[in-house]
């Protein structure tokens, strides 16, 4: 363990090493390339591989392949690249492949302002791929959180056999902060469950008593089947409603029922809070200051930053905001995650505070908008 002063991007790279990353596949894109470059220097020293592929499609598919050879795998990208990856992420969902995708948001749509920040892609990160299932999305706000949540992203992906999106943005990417860096062996690391039956008895999509099937890898003699078609427990194509139902509900439940365990947030001034400023990622740095200003002006304001954006733990969020008079959802986009929370907090007063800024929304601006509603 050591204390370092690093950017959010470097913290992600360090976190991935601590979590046991063995394969990074990437295609350069601002503002993620320094994750790639850092790992290209450091990972080979630890026996891992870093390869630049011909595009993001190849990168994510190679990461999925490597995961099926039992190597913890990761790729990092931004909006344009993530858009190319979504077909393969759907593959990772149905084949239940652990893989971590770092999504460093920049200003969009399209090429937008490649070097600057925004939170436009918060819904794409989980709803972007076909098939209508949710993948976990974790959102750090500081370099320390970037480190910690990267480790967590790997653990969740291994435990639930799912792709996990670590959603950062250009501001966090290049903001320096103090980070407690832990080495491999100094953090809790979860490994995917391995089959306990002999190869003849192994069924790659049989979850047994639970919801997550043990995973054998290529080269272990288990004759695994990676199947993108709707499949039964053996991995055999089965175009039948009963099989589709069983598969869909299991894939859905294994994520959604983990919501309580995955729920994670940070809060300030929660005591007696009547005006809650809810945000995530870099914007929560602004809302923290905004809440402080409001407090100093006599409002009973608090700041809550969500570190798990999906799956949405509805009950947890309701309990957290129970008794709060007004909830303001502050984000650097046209008001996207607000739609999630509005549904969860039916009956409470929920106000969208969308502030579009190439950097951080200014706390003063947040305060001004909020005060119009008080």
């Amino acid at each position, binding site marked *: 363990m050591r204390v370092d002063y690093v950017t959010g991007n470097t913290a992600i790279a360090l976190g991935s090493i601590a979590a046991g990353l063995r394969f990074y596949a990437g295609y350069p894109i601002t503002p993620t390339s320094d994750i790639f470059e850092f790992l290209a*220097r450091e990972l080979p020293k630890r*026996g891992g591989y870093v390869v630049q592929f*011909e595009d993001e*499609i190849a990168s994510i*598919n190679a990461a999925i392949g490597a995961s*099926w050879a039992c190597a913890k*795998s990761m790729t990092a990208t931004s909006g344009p690249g993530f858009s190319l990856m979504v077909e*393969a992420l759907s593959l990772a969902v149905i084949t239940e492949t652990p893989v971590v995708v770092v999504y460093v948001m920049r200003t969009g749509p399209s090429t937008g302002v490649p070097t600057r920040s925004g939170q436009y892609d918060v819904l794409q990160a989980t709803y972007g791929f076909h098939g209508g299932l949710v993948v976990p999305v974790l959102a750090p706000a500081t370099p320390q959180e970037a480190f910690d949540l990267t480790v967590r992203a790997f653990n969740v992906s291994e435990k639930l056999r799912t792709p996990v999106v670590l959603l950062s943005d250009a501001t966090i990417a290049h903001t320096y902060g103090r980070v407690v860096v832990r080495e491999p062996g100094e953090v809790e690391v979860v490994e995917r469950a391995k089959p306990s039956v002999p190869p003849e008895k192994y069924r790659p999509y049989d979850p047994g008593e639970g919801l997550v099937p043990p995973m054998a890898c290529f080269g272990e003699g288990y*004759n695994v*089947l990676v199947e993108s078609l709707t499949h039964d427990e053996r991995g055999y194509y089965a175009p039948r409603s009963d099989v589709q139902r069983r598969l869909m509900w299991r894939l859905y439940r294994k994520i959604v029922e983990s919501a309580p365990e995955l729920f994670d947030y940070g809060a300030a001034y929660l005591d007696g809070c009547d005006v809650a400023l809810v945000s995530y990622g870099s914007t929560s740095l602004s809302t923290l200051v905004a809440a402080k200003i409001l407090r100093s002006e006599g409002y009973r304001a608090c700041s809550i930053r969500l570190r798990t954006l999906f799956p949405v733990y509805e009950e947890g969020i309701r309990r957290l905001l129970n008794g709060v008079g007004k909830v303001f959802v502050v984000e650097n986009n046209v008001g996207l995650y607000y739609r999630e929370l509005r549904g969860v907090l039916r009956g409470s007063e929920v106000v969208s505070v969308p502030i579009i800024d190439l950097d951080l929304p200014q706390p003063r601006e947040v305060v001004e908008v909020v005060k119009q509603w008080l």
Partner: protein
Amino acid sequence: MAVAHPLDRYLRTDRLPTMWCPGCGLGILLGCILRALDRRIREGSLRRENVGFAGGIGCSARMTLYPYFDSAHVIHGRAIPFALGVKIVKPEMKMIVVGGDGDIAAIGGNHILHAIRRNADLVVIMANNMIYGMTGGQQAPTTPRGLYTTTTPYGNPEREINIVKLAAALGANYVARGSVTHTPLLEQMIYKALGKRGLAFVEVLSTCPELFGRHIGFRSPVDLYSELRKRVVVKTRPSVEESDYSWERGFVIGEFVDRDEPGFIEVLQEYTSRARGGAG
């Protein structure tokens, strides 16, 4: 379990019959692949648990459903990066990519190009039935100019891809074109490909009686098979310049390239070991 056929031990027999139409050439190709593997496994040059298949989407890619090995049936065009991901972290694996001409030469075109450029240690078998079979007979990059497809009803206006030239130009260690009409030769090519380091590319002319033959006047599988056989020209060690791919002039089959340059994986490992303070 009673073994009805010598290749049964390499098949998921509970999945048979295959999904292919009666008379489809793909079953012949599967037989050749399994026989070539059988020879390698018997002679001890390949371990069964180190053989893996990967295919994209298409009738040809469904080849991956039947062999009783580690196998991946992934998404359209992306089997090559999947297989390379496996291979990089588990170099002992012999990864065999099987796909159609659409899967590998159209949507997967960028991946095959760069896999060959890298001389990536993969065996890539491209089943070329000159059409998109699975989706119903649309134009493929391999469809000979002038022929009817459902998306070129007035005749295909495009030039065909000669992927042998592409593979040779970009430096694959092994480049061959075989045909399901000439099985001993095809089996030998695959056998050889399985023993190569670097990228081994085998294009396989195959018959799709259902959606190619039927539309161009060769309705029965035997007719199409015979027609293809007539148009295939077998050459011994032809040069790349001789690799004609033409409905009129014929389809030249043979081994065009056979060299032994270091493959991507060993070079990557060497460079990676430098980081660990090894030589270099």
